[in-house]
């Protein structure tokens, strides 16, 4: 029996066991929406396409399953661009359908036409323009395969409206064979032996784990490795939760706003074991002074990440889960008692800290209280900037997929729609978006989606009336010239919440912080905005200025 291209899309998604799709309709995707109306999976209508793609991203990060998105041609598709780039930088599996004008008018500046495969080429793992109805099912199968295997990423399928309306026999392929795409899973045995030898001989080793550990579900294997070897571990922003931060051997996050002890341990190390991390500039600072004494083992699924920013002694291309299992089978613990004593002393003497106040609410205090009241059992999404850094510093992440943040692209406006996706994917968890008063206004329209679906997402705005991180840089490096970063001309967030049918609470006194968080957690059928009016000029410390090294680390405010 012949079915239409639109039906093929729905049937294929069913076979891919899609539970929820995010999107927004428009002219050329009406044939697809016609059949989405009674599809057996959930459809979440966003209020802006960017909200849909970030929600799908949050869903994917929280569950490990691919996020699925649909938008119309032209403006619908271009509105997805920021979200696609966000997912691409952070290796998040998405399958994105965009409508396209009919094949015979492509290139004619038709109504709502844009060259979407052209626009998204550098920000997708792969993309397709469907020119033949008979290739559609195969393309969808390939898209899911490519998005979810190897180094995951977004794959876009541009579907012209006449392809959606055309008919053909439907056969969904069982398997995919791509001669030019065969991700390496297992590590090279010889390299693994070399790595184990280096580990055994090391005297000052540190593990540096990134988002790759989380996307390959390798947290258990990482824990086994640390248990077997006793090596201290630091993670990147995207690696938070890969290893329990309340464990003695955790050094928490490294990099620009990482801990003193993580950055100094890495700097002093004689062996750095990188797992699923890519030596981003926010981690390394000045490359030449990053690890002056260390050899490097780099485990990564993506060969193009290896030796990209720093020279690697033992590269191991493979999936973190498999490679760590293979290492765990043969590795012996190094003799590092002295090193551990030294690192633990650094950790004890230089904790993350801030100067609390009785007068104002410190943003760090808010994060600490959220951590205490939830017992750390929550999924934390963040926006980008100071809120993101405080959320990473003052909350101990113990489980993978509980910290969701735009790391690579640094997309303001990501956190709230991502928390909608995360909450849909994990109804068993409380999802809290740590926001700034700047970021939250970038996708606030999605609030109605959370209200509509009765999602009890908590939005904790650390409201300082500034674009705080930029203001911090202006204070430190631009002579306090606060050019266009003061945003205290702002909406009444409580009334705004109420207008949408959500709950809103303004918190202006320190004593009200805890009751407000408790109140928010007691609400389970709608989103809650907590508008914390925090100290306006609090800064994020420690800080290694961009392009500088651990020697230039600023620990606190200069008097």
């Amino acid at each position, binding site marked *: 029996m012949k079915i239409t291209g639109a039906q093929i899309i729905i049937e294929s998604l069913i076979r891919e066991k899609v539970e929820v799709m995010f999107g927004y309709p428009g002219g050329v995707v009406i044939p697809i929406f016609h059949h989405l109306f009674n599809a057996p999976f959930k459809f979440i209508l966003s209020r802006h396409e960017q909200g849909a793609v970030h929600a799908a991203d949050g869903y994917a990060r929280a569950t490990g399953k691919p996020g699925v998105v649909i938008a119309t041609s032209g403006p619908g598709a271009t509105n997805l661009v920021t979200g696609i780039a966000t997912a691409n930088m952070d290796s998040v599996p998405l399958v994105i359908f965009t409508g396209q004008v009919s094949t015979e008018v492509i290139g004619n500046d038709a109504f709502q036409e844009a060259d979407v*495969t*052209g626009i998204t*080429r*550098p920000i997708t*793992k*792969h993309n397709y*323009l469907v020119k033949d109805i008979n290739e559609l099912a195969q393309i969808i199968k390939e898209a899911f395969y*490519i998005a979810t295997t190897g180094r995951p990423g977004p794959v876009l399928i541009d579907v012209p409206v006449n392809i959606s309306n055309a008919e053909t026999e439907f056969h969904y392929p069982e398997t995919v064979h*791509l*001669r*030019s*795409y065969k991700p390496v899973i297992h590590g090279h045995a010889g390299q693994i032996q070399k790595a184990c030898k280096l580990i055994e001989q090391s005297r000052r080793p540190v593990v540096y784990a990134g988002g790759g550990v989380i996307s390959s579900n390798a947290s258990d294997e990482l824990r086994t490795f640390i248990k077997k070897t006793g090596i201290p571990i630091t993670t990147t922003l995207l690696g938070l939760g890969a290893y329990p931060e309340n464990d003695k051997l955790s050094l928490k996050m490294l990099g620009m706003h990482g801990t003193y002890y993580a950055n100094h341990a890495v700097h002093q190390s004689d062996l750095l074991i990188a797992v699923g991390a890519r030596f981003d500039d926010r981690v390394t600072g000045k490359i030449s002074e990053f690890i002056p004494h260390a050899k490097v083992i780099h485990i990564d699924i*993506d*060969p*193009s990440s290896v030796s*990209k920013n720093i020279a690697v002694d033992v590269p191991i291309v493979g999936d973190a889960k498999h490679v760590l299992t293979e290492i765990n089978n043969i590795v012996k613990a190094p003799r590092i008692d002295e090193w551990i004593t030294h690192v633990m002393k650094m950790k004890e003497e230089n904790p993350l800290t801030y100067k609390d106040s009785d007068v104002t609410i410190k943003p760090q205090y808010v994060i600490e209280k959220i951590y205490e009241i939830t017992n750390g059992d929550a999924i934390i999404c963040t926006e980008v900037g100071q809120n993101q850094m405080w959320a990473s510093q003052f909350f101990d992440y113990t489980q993978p997929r509980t910290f969701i943040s735009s790391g690579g692209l640094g997309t303001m406006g990501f956190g709230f729609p991502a928390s909608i996706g995360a909450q849909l994917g994990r109804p068993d968890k409380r999802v809290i978006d740590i926001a700034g008063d700047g970021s939250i206004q970038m996708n606030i329209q999605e609030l109605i989606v959370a209200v509509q679906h009765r999602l009890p997402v908590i939005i904790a705005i650390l409201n300082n009336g500034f674009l705080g991180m930029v203001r911090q840089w202006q204070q430190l490096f631009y002579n306090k010239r606060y050019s266009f970063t003061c945003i205290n001309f702002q909406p009444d967030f409580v009334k705004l919440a109420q207008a949408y049918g959500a709950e809103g609470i303004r918190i202006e006194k320190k004593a009200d912080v805890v009751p407000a968080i408790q109140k928010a957690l007691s609400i389970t059928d709608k989103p809650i905005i907590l508008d914390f009016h925090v100290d306006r000029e609090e800064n994020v410390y420690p800080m290694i200025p961009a392009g500088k090294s651990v020697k230039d680390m600023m620990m606190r405010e200069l008097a």
Partner: protein
Amino acid sequence: MSQHVISVKVENKFGVLARVAGLFSARGYNIDSLAVSETELPDVSVMTIVVSGDDRIIEQVKKQLNKLIDIIKVTDHNQENAVQREIVLAKLNATPTKRNEIYQLAQIFGARIVGVTNKAIILEMVSDPETVDNFIELLRPYAIKELIRTGRVSILKE
């Protein structure tokens, strides 16, 4: 900065050239020459890309090329491991009196005359890129009206 010859076997599909070119243009690199055609397999094309750039960055571009889904194989070619050829077509202003000199020069380089009019003469020459460069230098005194090169094609010796 040094010159690199990169041979890329790709799926013979629309859009692949744009993906490949994008990796160079995104880094602000100009492609010196580019030749694309089908191979012995009709569903495989080969692109011979000549590009000048920092060795480390070219290495990164090659890794990124390998990452593209439609790229089958990326290899480095050079004068030792590969045979490299280029075609040049040169149109010269040549009145009948000048023709003899040009014929002689053409003979030395094994160039062929592929077009003659009262005012002009067109030469075709196939050789390795260095010889093509030398040939063009020697043509310059004869007032080159128009000159076009195919870009390099390169095949590994083994």
